[in-house]
């Protein structure tokens, strides 16, 4: 199998006025994050990768195969949590356990029970009566309990409080620690979740990848320069990625923070962070 557990190359999908056209690689041993606004194409990308929708162009390979040709054995190697879909609300946690046991030969019943108890998931209550947090926890738990090689997590932390988010992220970290050949691809619009968890991050907007960078590089090398009109005129723009007009002058996104801190001592240089990088990549203009 290739070193990539998921690979999309110019993957295209058209929905009326929306077009997904993106490339992405998820190698073994890494947690890859996808961040983007609602409707940016994150779920469409995942659904195409899982063979739930048919691509209109390009290619996508999951576990080295065309998603439409995955066998049951191949599918058992993936664990999936989707933002807009899950188990039928009339089922209970004990039902889910039996269903997973029926589907997956590698289902770890003891771990499921242990985690369900730790997360205080009610065993005999209908899922439709669960809180948003409980539903999200159950989705992730169902995905990580059968020894999958690849986890695909679509907005697993949406609508959760900080404690619940951290519990889920901890579960994903534990999953990765068990086997270095595993991989996780996770989408979120909460940048903090991805900053602390992911090895690399894709930013997606209107169906296109606008930036792909290692998280360490994103956090250490990206910065926002805040400059007035005069400073902007004299600024070396060779490392400026995007510029956005502001009431005080300009916000300039750079991927070479050190260059500007060393060579432009008079200007304000703020740490990048996913949110500000994302905002400037989308709202800013190229020079």
């Amino acid at each position, binding site marked *: 199998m290739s070193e990539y557990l998921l690979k999309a190359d110019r993957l295209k999908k058209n929905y009326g006025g929306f077009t997904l056209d993106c490339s992405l690689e998820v190698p073994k041993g890494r947690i890859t994050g996808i961040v983007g606004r609602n409707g940016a194409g994150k779920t469409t990308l995942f*659904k195409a990768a*899982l063979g*739930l*929708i*048919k691509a209109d162009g390009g290619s996508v390979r999951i576990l080295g195969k065309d998603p439409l040709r995955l*066998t*049951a*054995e*191949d*599918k*058992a190697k*993936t664990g*999936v949590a*989707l933002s*807009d*879909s*899950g*188990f*039928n*609300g*009339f*089922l209970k946690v004990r*039902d889910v356990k*039996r*269903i*997973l*046991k*029926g*589907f*997956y030969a590698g289902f770890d019943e003891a771990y499921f029970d242990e985690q369900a108890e730790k997360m205080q998931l009610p065993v005999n209550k209908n899922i439709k009566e669960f809180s948003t947090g409980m539903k999200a926890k159950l*989705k992730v738990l169902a995905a990580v309990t059968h020894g999958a090689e690849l986890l*695909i997590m679509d907005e697993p932390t949406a609508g959760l409080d900080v404690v619940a988010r951290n519990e889920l992220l901890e579960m994903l970290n534990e999953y990765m620690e068990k086997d270095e050949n595993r991989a996780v691809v996770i989408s979120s619009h909460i940048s903090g979740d991805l900053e602390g968890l992911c090895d690399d991050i894709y930013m997606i907007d209107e169906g296109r990848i606008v930036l792909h960078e290692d998280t360490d590089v994103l956090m250490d090398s990206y910065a926002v320069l805040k400059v007035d009109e005069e400073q902007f005129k004299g600024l070396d723009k060779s490392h400026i990625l995007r510029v956005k007009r502001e009431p005080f002058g300009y916000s300039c996104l750079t991927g070479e923070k050190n260059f500007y801190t060393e060579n432009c001592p008079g200007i304000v240089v703020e740490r990048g962070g996913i949110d500000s990088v994302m905002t400037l990549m989308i709202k800013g203009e190229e020079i």
Partner: protein
Amino acid sequence: MKGLLVKDFRLLTVNREFIILTLILGVGMLIFASGRQLFPLMFVMFVAAIVGAGTINDDEADNGNAFLFTMPFSVREYVAEKYLFCFMLSFGAMVIMAVGAAAAVLLGKGDRVSGLGITYVLSLVAAVLMQAWTIPVNLRFGGRKSNIANAVIFFVVFAAITLILNLFTPGIGPVFETVSAMGLKVIAAAGFVAAALIYAASIAVSLRIMAKKEF
């Protein structure tokens, strides 16, 4: 397929009050309406067929199919499981009604026993044919729309049959005479072959519907 069957049987418990009531009504009719076995039998088996096909709508509820189809099974397995599950329900209903009929006989309320076997087999065939209708319709149109689609399809089929009978009234008599002359065994065998062909066609249509679906 095991996981799918477990799921559907677990979902079945959601309707347990309705299922128990149907069985009580069916067995009650067997016991208290001596000599009229066919109606309660067909009633229970048809309800079983409808409940079975209803799990297709349960799968679709709240966009559940998107997640369900990430699990380890193929579209072919999904379709096969639906037909198997519905058949199991109808067969189970038939067995329960047969036990009920035997109880009625023991209580002195039952009908003659001879000839009932063919009634039960024919009822099962009728229920299977109903599944051959409801499963693809439910797969194609989903929960609410499938009710409308069933009504429209029923009307079209009924109108077509009426029209054909009216157009060919003079020729119907000889056809019936020819069929009658073939004898019961030949008619039954032809009926089973026709039912098997309809069932196979239904499975093919269901596979085609599911192959085109996106979630």
